[in-house]
């Protein structure tokens, strides 16, 4: 069982995260006071540490700085501020990823799994997931969703889903990078070869069309999730 230590001072939020991660088969411990975090993390050596940036006693950045030399696992930052400075400082300190509040459970899970996969603690779901190539040879199956790459055919519940070429390519790209948060910039480059200028909403429109055709609702989407201000996430295990 993979182990997580969550350092978060909001009691209700941390107990929710604990409950969810336990349901997903993780062993998760909570520390509410920043002053205690360093010692506990170093002695327990969990696979992943989730650190809130603003903590009573000692802030997340300080804790990260203190543990980094002697802690080999991944550090995920949980933050309410999108301030770029925080990000840069965090990455310089050796943070592995950032999650901006409000977090969605499925996104948190994907991020944690991604860290574990990087550390080779759990196997990759797709061998191709590291390549940016849109076209793959093998067919993809996620629950009731199947993508037949040779025929360029997508079926849901064994029924054919009519998709335009660009929608198909987008779906294939997302599916090949399942559990990864893909930025609009990345999606734009990979599907059209043009750089995303931050204003173009074509990606969002296409995602909305895909969701509609694949039976995923907009704001409470569970299959292709919008990760606020970061991009999109394809969830491989919700196609039932």
């Amino acid at each position, binding site marked *: 069982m993979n182990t997580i230590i969550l350092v978060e001072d*909001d009691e*209700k939020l941390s107990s*929710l995260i604990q409950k*969810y991660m336990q349901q997903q088969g993780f062993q998760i411990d909570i520390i509410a006071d920043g002053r205690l975090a360093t010692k506990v993390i170093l002695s327990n050596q969990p696979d992943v540490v989730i650190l809130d940036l*603003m903590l009573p006693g000692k802030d997340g950045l300080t804790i990260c700085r203190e543990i980094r030399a002697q802690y080999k696992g991944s550090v995920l930052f949980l933050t309410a501020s999108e301030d770029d400075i925080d990000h840069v400082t965090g990455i310089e300190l050796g943070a592995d990823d950032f999650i901006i*509040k*409000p977090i*969605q*459970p499925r996104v948190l899970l994907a991020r944690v799994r991604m860290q574990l996969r990087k550390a080779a603690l759990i196997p990759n779901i797709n061998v191709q997931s590291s390549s940016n190539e849109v076209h793959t040879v093998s067919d993809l199956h996620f629950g009731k969703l199947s993508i037949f790459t040779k025929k360029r055919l997508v079926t849901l519940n064994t029924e054919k889903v009519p998709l335009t070429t660009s929608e198909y390519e987008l779906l294939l790209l997302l599916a090949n990078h399942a559990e990864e948060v893909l930025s609009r910039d990345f999606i734009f480059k990979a599907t059209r070869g043009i750089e995303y200028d931050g204003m173009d909403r074509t990606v969002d429109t296409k995602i909305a069309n895909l969701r509609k055709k694949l039976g995923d609702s907009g704001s409470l989407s*569970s299959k292709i999730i919008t990760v606020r201000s970061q991009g999109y996430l394809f969830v491989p295990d919700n196609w039932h």
Partner: protein
Amino acid sequence: MTRLFISFYVVLFCLISTYSFVADMSVKTWLSEMMVIDKTNDYVGAFYLIENLHKSLDQQAFDKAITNFPSQSNTPLKMFNINNIDFDPKLFDSNSIYVADEYNDLLYYRFKDSDLVARIGPMNTYEPLTEYESIYESGYYPFLAFGIFLWVLLFHTKLKRLDKAATELGKGNLSVRVSQKGRHRVGNLNHSFNLMATQIEKLVQGHKNLTNAVAHELRTPMARIRFQLDMLYSEQDHKQRKEYMFGISDDLNELSDLVDELLTFAKFDREPISTELQAHSLNESINKVIRSRHFNSDVKINYQQQNNKLDFVPFEPKNLERAIGNLLTNAQKYTQDTVNIHIKHDKKLTSIYVDDNGPGIPDEQRIDIFLPFKRLDNSRTRETGGYGLGLAIVKQIAVRHGGNVSIEKSPIGGARFILTWPSKSIK
């Protein structure tokens, strides 16, 4: 730059010209009278000598002396017969002298015992000297212009520096300041500019901090709602689902309380400080607050009634009650078992003291604690509740009343909050 120079120069030129013109005009009459006397006195001796020469020499020798009068003399001399002069002989004064042109030294003298008239003048000047003088005079205005140009150039450079800084500030670089060195200074302007820039920077920074804090405070309950909603969505168990729904409801209540408090804070921030306050009974207000805000029955609230004679002081009942209420709520949260309230009056100030016997507040945090979203542990622990705006609102209300709020150590062990404002309405 050119415009500044031209306008400066033209104004100066006009001023000088106007002055000399007006001055000349106004003194001309009596000046010329004095000059006539002056010139008469200048040459009266010379005429005396000529007349004596005429008396002592015979006609021929005198004519010869006159003819041989040095031609290069600056004061030429010429003799006339009284019948040949081109002005009225009555013009000769008591000294027999007539000043025809007092500016160019042209004078006539009538001999006392003959028909002869001697003329001196008009005065000449050595030619090159005149030229030199005209060159000297014509250089006057260009020289003035040059001086003014240099001065304006220097002034302009100083202004340019200020202008650049102001433009930079306008573009949003709030950290820009101008040099306050002596040679860069334009009066007190550099100092004032820096003062203004510092104020603006502080204000904007404060605003930014507040916005960040608000975002942070709003996002925590939002994060919980989002999380619970997603879990609710995939949860099948009925009891569990209900629990998530209650959880979401709690968080929504928290959010709406926070928004209410924020609006109150914003209102006091925006509303102007009222200038004229009506007198009300402070006793009544405090009793009212104690009745409505005493939520913790484990805490004993002692209030010492005050002298009725001094009871009526100017304040806004609704707002001051809110401030006292916030102090009381705060005290009840942190105290062990007692909260003491008492009032102190002097001629100038009315003060309300709220004492508790809780842990107290360290010296270094006694100012910061009145900033919005400041808490002693510098995070958002929910144990004590509240949103970090209560004391900020107290401060705002105190300032509205022309007063202040401060913290001391209370005699019963904890913190003492003192809310003070003027006893007499500010007119």
